[in-house]
């Protein structure tokens, strides 16, 4: 006897993700899923981003790591509401973990929710969390071959941040290779070069965030994903 099923294995995650997106939209919050390898500067960039957007724009963070509350402690100093999610052995955040995280935050009055995913260039890309936009970071010391090596992360990105650009010239890194690889994968996402250390390019990232929030407020109701 053959039983037809035809069901997506990720359907359960996607249903929770859609619900997360509805909750964020109902509160007028723009959700951003930040993905990259460990150590590419997600937390450092958020430490600068949150105070720079204040006081006009209010942020909160859900931060995923296998262990420790170190990132939450760092981000808590920005005075933004922060919830640490420990995934144990889990290599990525799931929509269910984000749903529980949303329950710990007062969403009303927030403008941005940054979801700092577990540092990993593979699995986070396959899981919708209910975000509106995908932010992918690549840091200079990781090497200029990473876009070509991890296309599933870069192809659906809404913005790509090349971080630690103050290290160009100190470590071998050919930016032209990154631009070339991205041009074949994703011409839609702007590539913003920045250094959280010397501040170069950070303003362009902040402008991008402000523009996306302004777009959202003008076309409220239309899902952008």
């Amino acid at each position, binding site marked *: 006897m*053959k039983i*037809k099923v*035809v069901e*997506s*294995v990720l359907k359960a995650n996607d249903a929770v993700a859609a619900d997360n997106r509805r909750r964020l939209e109902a509160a007028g919050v723009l959700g951003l899923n930040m993905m990259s390898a460990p150590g590419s500067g997600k937390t450092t960039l958020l430490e600068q981003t949150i105070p720079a957007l204040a006081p006009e724009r209010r942020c909160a963070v859900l931060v995923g790591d296998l262990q420790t509350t170190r990132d939450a402690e760092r981000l808590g100093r920005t005075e933004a509401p922060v919830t640490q999610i420990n995934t144990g052995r889990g290599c990525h955040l799931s929509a269910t973990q984000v749903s529980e995280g949303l329950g710990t935050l007062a969403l009303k009055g927030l403008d941005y929710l940054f979801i700092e995913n577990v540092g990993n260039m593979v699995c986070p890309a396959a899981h919708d969390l209910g975000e509106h936009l995908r932010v992918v970071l690549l840091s200079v010391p990781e090497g200029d071959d990473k876009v*070509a090596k991890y296309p599933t992360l870069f*192809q659906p990105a809404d913005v790509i941040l090349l971080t630690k650009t103050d290290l160009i010239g100190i470590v071998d890194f050919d930016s032209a290779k990154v631009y070339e690889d991205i041009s074949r*994968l994703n011409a839609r996402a702007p590539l913003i070069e920045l250094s959280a250390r010397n501040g170069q390019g950070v303003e362009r990232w902040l402008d991008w965030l402000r523009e996306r929030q302004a777009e959202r407020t003008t076309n409220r109701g239309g899902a952008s994903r």
Partner: protein
Amino acid sequence: VFEAMHLAFEAVAKGTLAEEATLKLEEERLTAMCRSCGHEYKPTIQDFLCPKCATADAQLIAGQDIVLKSVVCETEEEATSA
């Protein structure tokens, strides 16, 4: 990926009704839709340039997921008569 799926299936099926079952996997190619001109095409994972308008602005519409298509079951009599 196929190897990992077979290994995992074997591990979870052990000691269950599905212990003797075989897992049949088929690979579905990626399908993309060009956001610029609307053309549907099969990109490779390294190259998403639209063959029609040469823009790399693709929305993936198939081939990213794992889909459980069907389950074939046999009664004991069916199995022995086969």
